């Protein structure tokens, strides 16, 4: 059991974390103090074009090793410790952030140019594998993940999230069940632009992980949820699927439903998605909230064994495990929606309303 909450302003009006904090703290019963985290988009104005790499490290030496690694492969514009209030949590890892872009020359390899995203992803995977004791846990542009072992209040205060302004916020309250609670294992999980928070347990993890590993993603955070972030990155960024298509890869309709589909085109494309991406399908209970630079969306397993509720008001869309948490974010909600099992709810920024084919805002 875990709690999730999310809010997004479609006009990109920014606010600090106080509302999302109320929504997640209300769901304290859904966690046990062994993990909480926040993901915020739009927090680094002035650095929008740079990848913001957040790392956690078990020692000062590991911080230095990570810095050496990053400086070798990237042009670093700024490096600084992530400010923390260590009166809240005394025993904590070292946190550091880097604003970088790929060192131009390393993108060129015998005339083949790699995309910047691909390069950054590869280097982050490599660093997490090779640099002992240091993890990059956030690597997108103009966004950041803040997470650790503690209650949502602890983590919020530890990272002093009152001081950040963002236009979309994710918050997670963890009750770890299949792996020990540790700083890297808290949610959100991030890969480049994608951050996800997850309530549930993924029975298909074994094959999802093997599939991702054969595609160059290394799962080093000891927890099932991390595969979801990588799957979104793989399916949407690399394979060019729409959000709808990616959602129906992760939570596909039953074969029985597909084979009954009257619309031939829809049936054929659904069959292909199921066949090609069998190893990316998620089994087991899940409610996922995913954020990216284009917006935010929720997804549940297709028998909906974990809760997800949504409210839409003015220019805001709110997501939470419990309806009461929605009202913590805005009291006078008029429209609260309970999505059906397996049905994604997608909220896109207005400036991003030129979605790829097949998508509905």
């Amino acid at each position, binding site marked *: 059991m875990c709690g999730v909450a999310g809010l997004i302003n479609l006009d990109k009006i920014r606010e600090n974390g106080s509302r999302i904090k109320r929504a997640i703290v209300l769901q304290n019963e859904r966690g046990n103090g062994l993990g909480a985290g926040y993901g915020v988009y739009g927090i680094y104005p002035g650095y929008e074009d740079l990848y913001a790499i957040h790392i956690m490290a078990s020692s000062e030496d590991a911080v230095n090793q990570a810095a050496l690694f990053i400086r070798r492969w990237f042009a670093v514009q700024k490096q600084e410790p992530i400010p923390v209030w260590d009166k809240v949590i005394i025993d904590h890892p070292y946190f550091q952030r880097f604003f970088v872009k790929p060192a131009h020359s390393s993108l060129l390899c015998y005339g083949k140019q790699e995309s910047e995203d691909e390069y950054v992803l590869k280097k982050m995977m490599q660093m997490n594998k090779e640099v002992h004791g240091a993890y990059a846990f956030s690597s997108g542009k103009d966004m950041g993940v803040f997470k650790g072992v503690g209650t949502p209040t602890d983590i919020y205060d530890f990272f002093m999230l009152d001081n950040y302004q963002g236009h979309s916020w994710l918050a997670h309250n963890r009750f770890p*069940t*299949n792996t020990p609670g540790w700083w890297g294992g808290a949610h959100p999980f991030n890969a480049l632009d994608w951050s996800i928070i997850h309530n*549930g*347990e993924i*029975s*298909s*993890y*074994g*094959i999802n*992980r*093997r*599939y991702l*590993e*054969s*595609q160059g993603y290394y799962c080093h955070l000891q927890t099932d949820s991390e595969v979801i972030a990588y799957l979104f990155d793989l399916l949407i960024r*690399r*394979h*060019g*699927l729409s959000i709808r*298509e990616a959602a129906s890869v992760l939570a*596909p309709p*039953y*074969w*029985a439903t597909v084979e009954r589909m009257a619309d031939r085109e829809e049936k*054929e494309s659904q*069959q*292909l*998605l*199921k*066949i*090609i*991406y*069998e*190893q990316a*399908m*998620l*089994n*087991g*209970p899940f409610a996922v909230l995913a954020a990216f630079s284009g917006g935010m969306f929720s997804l549940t397993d297709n*028998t909906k*064994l974990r809760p997800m509720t949504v409210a839409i008001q003015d220019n805001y869309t709110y997501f939470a495990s419990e309806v009461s948490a929605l009202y913590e974010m805005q009291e006078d909600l008029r429209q609260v929606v309970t999505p059906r099992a397996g049905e994604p709810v997608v909220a896109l920024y207005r400036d991003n309303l030129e979605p790829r084919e097949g998508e509905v805002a």
Partner: protein
Amino acid sequence: MKIRPEQPGLRSLYRPVFDRALCIGCGDCASQCTFNEIRLDSRKDKKIPQATGKTCGACQRCAVFCPRGAIYIEKRPLTLHPHAIWNEAAVMHVHLQSASGAVPLTGFGAGTTIPTYWERILFNACQVTNPAIDPQREPMETITYLGRKPASLKKADGLKADQLLRLSLPLVFAPMSYGSINLRLQKAFAITARKKGILWYSGEGGLHEELNDYSDCAVLQIASGRFGVDPDYLTKARAYQIKIGQGAKPGIGGHLPGEKVLDGVSRTRMIPIGSDAISPAPQHDIYSIEDLRLLINAVKEASGYKPVCVKIAAVHNVASIATGVVHAGADMVYLDGYRAGTGATPVIVRDNVGIPTELALAAVDQRLRDEGIRHKASLVVAGGFSNSADVMKAIALGADAVAIGTAFLVSCGCYGCQRCQSGKCAWGLTTNDPVISKRLEVEWAVERLSNLIEAWHHEMKEVMGLNGIYDIGSFRGNRLLLRGVGLSAKELEILGIKHAGE
């Protein structure tokens, strides 16, 4: 030469025992026995059955058919001085060879004490944090597609699902040729395959004209003997299988003793009646991987681009071989392991050549993933599957589907006497004798086979459900569902699973 009552080594190891109090002297046992083990002594109006002790192989036919249940089979005592090497099997084998001067043949798969890994692997189950699914109440799906799949949707290039092979559950009938088994049994396989939405493999004996109607769910084989291959053969199947090797006899070709080559077999295989059909060890147009590529392409062109499967035996370097086969263009790799069955193989080859299915499967699946070509070919494995749990363990290790041979023979009556090569199968399965083969009724066999598949299907769904998985796709290759017990670190490493307690 002095005549002995019994040449050393030619006695049987078993004999029927008759309960005289129950026996009514109908003599049916003697007519059921196709090996002439039972002699009838006439006394008054009764026929008294007597065991001759020469040929009984414990096929159980007489015991099952005795109307009074008056027969059971016992092992004949053979008391030997205890010895670690010169045990019963060793002594008898040398006697048999000394008496015959020949290479002893056998049927069935290897029954040696080489470790069977399935029995040392256990499944996980859901507790608390993720709910188990009850397959009696909730949807549970096992639909499987075999064949070459694109790496991503963008690369699908107009592919349609029905160009691939759809299975309603990940089981197929292992290749058993017409000749090694009779037409009735093969027909029962074909009917059942269609009925259950799966595939049947023809084996190397060609396609008898009576089975033409079932070619749309058939994978027809092209083996080194090229039996039955003509232009027509190359257009009518759902898919084709090029046989390189066989788990029960890696490195040698198929054996069909002349005793089994009767009229129908002769016509279908296009060989003279009574001639031994000994397939060449290699395919003589494949001496290298590039030759295999040529043949795969030739079969694809001839057949109108049907999927092509390549069957290889599990041998030491199987992972590299499978990789080569996929690069050569195979859409499916059929991996036949150490315990795979056969209608006829030299004992020495069956028991001493090849590697266990489990290790081969784990190594091949992982290697194809490491090379990024796992999607290019489906993996069908065979060799030693006697229950549905082992099938699911193979799926979790990474198999796309499992081929069942022996279990389907057993389903039709076989008790494993291992004399398939003799052509005298008392159950009418591995014989072409026009009289004995009538013992097998096609409808009865179809019902038994369907029942077995149905029962296994239920059990497979049960195993999925208790792991919280509703679609076999999330079970496939999901090695975290498995734990080993009592296996060495090296074995676990090759299998890619953790030890119980980890």
